[in-house]
């Protein structure tokens, strides 16, 4: 947790402070945090939850040692606020697909937001929004990211443990297939011909979907080395439609760079 410090180092050691902030999101990742209460109780005396509106009304003023940010940037005001939060947090962690890649709402990035507003809102003039939904890292430097839609509780506990103990969090960046095979799940792509994003998606979820006979839809975003060109070509060869593949890739993490490039390329082929 010893990043650059603008704290006065002569102060007596205090408990590290954690702040949780929300942007455009469904709150699911914050719920994962609340869901970890049993684990977090163990270190309740070691950290100070200084700002977490969804959990407690009391708030402490910044600066904070660790900031956890949920949600994507979709308004001018968001873009302002994240810059201020960055100034307030020594170690900034984005949590979840919205914060790390723009989330499902980044589908708007391929559409005309103005048209949506006209169609949906009775008084569209009250709506003040950006044309895009973008990741936090597109606006400010981010120190660490936790992927997932929503994030995994164990990874969150690992993150906080690591920060408290003083080591780098152990968050793998290899594929979902590694977890799937460890678990002993039969590959849905190979045994059933289901187009699955496991091979290009980062592990962390425990490979839940294939264990329930479903394809991975990439909610942990791109793994470290992504080869969607080869994977999509193979699925097409197996009879999958290009439209389906575009929809598969353009999903919760559709706006993550590698996924975005792949779905755009599929459309342009």
């Amino acid at each position, binding site marked *: 947790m010893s990043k650059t410090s603008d704290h006065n180092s002569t102060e007596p050691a205090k408990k590290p402070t954690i702040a949780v902030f929300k942007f455009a999101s469904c709150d699911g990742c914050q719920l994962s945090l609340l869901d970890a209460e049993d684990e977090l109780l163990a270190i309740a005396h070691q950290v100070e939850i200084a700002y977490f509106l969804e959990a407690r009304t009391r708030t402490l003023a910044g600066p904070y040692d660790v900031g956890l940010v949920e949600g994507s940037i979709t308004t001018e005001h968001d873009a302002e606020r994240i810059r201020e939060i960055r100034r307030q947090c020594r170690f900034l962690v984005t949590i979840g697909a919205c914060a790390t890649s723009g989330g499902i709402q980044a589908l708007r990035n391929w559409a005309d937001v103005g048209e949506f507003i006209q169609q949906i809102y009775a008084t569209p003039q009250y709506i003040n929004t950006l044309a895009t939904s973008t990741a936090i890292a597109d606006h400010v430097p981010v120190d660490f990211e936790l992927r997932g839609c929503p994030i995994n509780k164990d990874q969150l506990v690992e993150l906080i443990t690591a920060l408290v*103990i*003083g*080591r*780098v969090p152990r968050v793998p960046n290899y594929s979902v297939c590694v977890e799937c095979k460890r678990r002993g799940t039969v590959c849905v792509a190979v045994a059933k011909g289901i187009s699955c994003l496991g091979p290009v998606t980062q592990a962390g979820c425990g490979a839940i979907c294939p264990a329930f006979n479903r394809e991975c839809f990439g909610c942990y975003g791109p793994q470290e080395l992504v080869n969607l060109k080869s994977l999509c070509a193979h699925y097409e060869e197996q009879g999958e439609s290009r439209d389906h593949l575009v929809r598969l890739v353009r999903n919760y993490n559709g706006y993550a760079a590698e996924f975005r490039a792949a779905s755009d390329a599929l459309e342009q082929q």
Partner: protein
Amino acid sequence: MNSQIQVAPTVDAANPWATHAVRIREIEPEVRDVVTYRLAFEDPAVAERFRFQPGQFNMLYLPGIGESAISISSDPDDPQRMLHTVRAVGNVTKAMARKQVGDQLLLRGPFGSAWPVDSCEGQDLVIAAGGLGLAPVRPVIHYVMNRRDRFGKVWLLYGARSPRDLLYTSQYDRWREADIDVQITVDLGDDQWDGHIGVVPVLFDRLQLDASRTRIITCGPEIMMRFVIAECLSQKIESKQIYLSMERNMNCALGFCGHCQLGPAFVCKDGPVFTHEQMEPYLDVQDF
């Protein structure tokens, strides 16, 4: 790699994961981010059994943080005084940097192959080290000093980025007194520096080597070792007379985890010390 591996008396071959408790007895700052720890076994029986060969390493373990392979940098004839020179660069070493005298660590070892000091006896010896690479060869210097008459000419060619990065500076005079020709160089000097400037391989220009009776021991960044080797080969020193210490991702030290493979070798078990003859086919292969 068909090497004959001798299991150390402090390692249980049937349960090589077992650790020994050690305590930090001294912490000696060296250069920026680098300190030397003197560690002592808590169990006197283990301390009694412990011995190591120059070039071997221990796995230092901080529970909850992880294990790290650290070469032993002290005198092999005095195994009770066990030193490790460590740069705070990874998870484990950074956490170690927060430890204090009296703190406990766990340790497995020693592991790995050794500099072939006994077969160097009767020969001339050039030790060429760069940066932190001096730590794993310091046991060789001790070994030579303890039986200096058994060696011919001995040179230590050592370089670092800047004068402030030179390791063990207070000991150079003692080494020189023991008739070791110590030549120091830095990449970049400062106001006080009136020594040699340049990279380690360049120091070879000054030496009159008898290729038939010279052994080379080199340890440092891979790029430095490659140039040292090129220099030696051009002076007709045979590939099997050149020894180098390789670095790969050593996780288990037992040849189980597979991370440290370098071609046919497990660096943790068959290495870290190899002859150039063993490594030659792989040294210039990109990303191997």
